[in-house]
């Protein structure tokens, strides 16, 4: 008697899902979810005025501010900063200024789809 239901399914590469939808954890950043394109304004830092109080580092929900211990300055992550501007609001030294994203040539993300 012939088997009339499909015996071996072929799933196209772009739709492949690991067994049980278990995926490896990211190591440094989740490159599959770039969020830099959420930004309408970016925080621009005045390193002279920065006191390294670390408020921006502490309060950023997207972990986009880090202290470069060697250079002794704060480093900003343009790929993922969503532009919430909590850092600007919480900066006691007033060293952060929001500037419209189109003022900058760089920081282009240009995704095919929003995710």
């Amino acid at each position, binding site marked *: 008697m012939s088997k009339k239901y499909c015996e071996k399914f072929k799933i196209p590469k772009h739709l492949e*899902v690991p067994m049980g*939808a278990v*995926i490896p*954890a*990211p*190591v*440094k*950043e*989740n*490159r*599959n*979810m*770039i*969020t830099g394109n*959420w930004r309408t304004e970016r925080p621009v830092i005045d390193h002279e005025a920065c006191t390294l*109080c*670390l*408020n921006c*580092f*502490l*309060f*950023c*929900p*997207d*972990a*986009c501010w*880090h*202290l470069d*211990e060697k250079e002794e300055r704060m480093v900003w*992550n343009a*790929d*993922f900063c*969503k*532009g*919430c*501007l*909590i850092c*600007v*609001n*919480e900066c006691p030294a007033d060293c952060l200024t929001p500037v419209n994203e189109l003022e900058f040539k760089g920081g282009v993300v240009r995704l095919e789809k929003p*995710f």
Partner: protein
Amino acid sequence: MAKAVETQNLEAVKSIRRVPQEEYYLPGHRTCQGCGPALTYKLVSKAAGPDSIFLGPTGCMYVANTSYLCSPWAYPWMHTQITNAGAVASGIEAAYQVLIRKGKYKGKLPNIVVMGGDGGSIDIGLQAMSGLMYRGHDVLFIMYDNESYANTGIQTSPATPYGANTTFTPPGEAIPEGKVLFPKDAPQLVIGGHPAVHYVATASVAYPVDLINKVRKALNYKGPSFLHIHSPCPKGWMFDAAKTVEVAKLAIETGMWVNYEWEKGEYTYQHTPKEYKPVKEYMKTQQRFAHLTDAHIAKMQAFIDARLKAPGIPVALPVLGPREE
């Protein structure tokens, strides 16, 4: 049966400078600009460190974080139903107890942390959470409180404050204040009936060092502990994304939120202002309260005044319930 399972000991952080630089809740998630719960997640992850397993019951912190087959967590993480985080965590903890005992897992017991929203903690998830607390599993249950079912489009939850405009409690002619009920007291639900619990605390994203230390203290306790973390939601509470921390701070300054610890029956309070500002100052920062009249705000003030007499300790509602009026 004797349990010779080794647990971890996490050091307290003394200042901002000592907050770990390492991130375990990594950039690249679909949470809102200025998301309070995301900030909570980041700080809790820093506190717990890499030797941890996190569980995410359905809610914003599941859907926004794992959208489309990717995830921002550097440690093992598992989705649970919104209903059963406490139970799945119990299963994982029990599994580690037996696997370590049998020598199948070499290492200390991982920190097992549930990151539940208000719905997944004290509404539909309450039964499983209570079951976990009662049975005494070595799990930290965190309720990141954004005061609504935010993922589904801001619907009322038992943590939603009186007077809030949500998509299930819209203000209208017949019900002018929007939400008419006062919220459940989450820490009291845990403290009030779970003898295995020795540590319950509230924390706020406005005070990250305090938050980190409370997480570490909770994890160092053997057995279950509960943290209730105030996590403002720009979308749901309708305030500008840059003001998440500002709003959280104002909540403490007006008495809308109280940071306290309950350790083996003793209460201690943190960040209490010398003088409380009127709740109106807090409420006017958020569009969800924009429709309220002075009479409604007075009702909220009365509720807060009564609660501040003994924060953390249950008090009778100073205002009539909706069925009594």
